[in-house]
């Protein structure tokens, strides 16, 4: 890549980041007025949250079971399989819960949001609202953003709970780790800051994934190909940013 191309790529990146930041400020400005219609927000929590429950719970169960298997095999080498509970809990609460939930959220709810808003743009529904003196940022974008923001930490919490159950299913019921040790080790080794780290991550990922999904849909080119492209961009940008922010947040929490 030539120097000019580098510069163009960088400028485009800065421009997109700036556009998304301005959009975030605009949405935040509409969040308070959007509370005048709480049913819209509640519906979006249901739309993005409740409708993603099955995939989140299934993924949580499988990830928890894999953690139970891998953790048990590893810890057994050191004769400390009783620590399986704490290993699984720390892995889930601090890392896997928020990250995998965010990736699944981007794929399930994020794409649905982008294509829905993109199609509203393509079929003139957003313009029609503007002409009816209804701000689509307040009526369409803000409730969907807030719905995702509320749903994401709740989904991560459910992922964690089901994941822990999966780890116990494999570790305790299948591999024979003592049930008392499994839970008591977990209780004694987990600190509040571990839980906080997971919550902070899931809130940050919730903001990022919801913002990208709504932003891409709202600014999608009003054609079939444009909406398709915006949906793809939602998944790619959400996933990459989630993983990058996870690295930054993990480092930040280590330094505290």
């Amino acid at each position, binding site marked *: 890549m030539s120097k000019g191309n580098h510069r163009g790529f960088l400028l485009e990146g800065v421009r997109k980041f700036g556009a998304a930041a301005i959009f975030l400020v605009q949405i935040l400005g509409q969040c308070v007025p959007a509370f005048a219609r709480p049913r819209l927000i509640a519906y979006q929590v249901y739309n993005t949250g409740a409708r993603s429950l099955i995939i989140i719970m299934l993924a949580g169960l499988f990830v928890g079971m894999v953690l139970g298997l891998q953790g048990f095999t590893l810890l057994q080498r050191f004769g400390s399989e009783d620590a399986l509970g704490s290993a699984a809990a720390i892995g889930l609460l601090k890392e896997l819960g928020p990250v995998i939930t965010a990736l699944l959220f981007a794929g399930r709810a994020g794409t649905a949001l982008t294509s829905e808003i993109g199609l509203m743009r393509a*079929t003139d529904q957003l313009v029609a609202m503007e002409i009816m003196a209804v701000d689509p940022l307040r009526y369409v974008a803000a409730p969907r953003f807030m719905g995702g923001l509320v749903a994401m930490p709740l989904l991560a919490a459910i992922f964690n709970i089901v994941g822990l159950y999966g780890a116990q299913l494999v570790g305790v019921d299948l591999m024979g780790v003592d049930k008392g040790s499994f839970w008591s080790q977990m209780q004694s080794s987990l600190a509040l800051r571990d839980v906080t780290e997971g919550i902070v991550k899931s809130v940050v990922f919730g903001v990022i994934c919801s913002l990208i999904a709504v932003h891409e849909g709202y600014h999608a080119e009003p054609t079939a190909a444009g909406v398709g492209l915006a949906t793809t961009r939602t998944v790619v940008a959400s996933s990459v940013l989630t993983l990058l922010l996870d690295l930054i947040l993990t480092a930040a929490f280590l330094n505290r």
Partner: protein
Amino acid sequence: MVVAVRDVHYAVDGRPIFTGVDLRARRGRITAIMGPSGTGKTTLLKLITAQIQADRGQVVVFGKELAQLRQSEIYDVRGRMGMLFQNGALLTDMSVFENVAFPVREHTDLPESLIRILVLTKLEAVGLRGAAGLMPSELSGGMARRVALARAIVMDPELLIYDEPFVGLDPISMGVIQRLIKQMNTALGITSIVVSHDVHELASIADDSYLLEAGHVAAGGKPQELLNSELPAVRQFMTGSADGPVRFHYPASDYTTQLLESEAR
């Protein structure tokens, strides 16, 4: 004067769409804006509804120059107008009833019983009271446009804008929409702007008419005056002739040369 467009210039990516458009829509009258496809009729509506801004010139609606207004003031102006979109632009996740009720719920605190009466009255006016429970996906194109019309008039606007209201309609629906536009105007005194290229449908209902061509108003006056005009561009459009000053073909290289070129390859 409800709408006044004065010496408006507008270009997209350096390509001029308007090069000095002047027209006005007078209170309580139906103003027709006609012109061949691609002359910027829909763009003109976007300028009047403040979706885009003119590069030069003034667009004045209800006595206010749109370029000078803040976003909240633009919403105030829009609150006094209604617009019928070419495709209806109904909100697809709501029923017909909810679509018509949408602006009322958003802008007023009327009790549910009053909203119901208001919506049913407007749906009855467009002959679709029986379709109140249907979803937009269950409607034909003509029905969707009539629902959109009910939605556009539910807040009793002072100005109604119609974007190509006759496109793709069967003769019955076309006649119904034509009568409705006239009724809205005579019964409710609504000022109307109708953008279309259906010359004869428009001529029968419009009070004033303008013909857009090549970025400006080629002719203006009563529909009958336009129909009888001797100006070549106006004559060509009114009679639907391919020969005349209005180009039918998009600019291209020489036809024979291009055909022979592709053969050589």
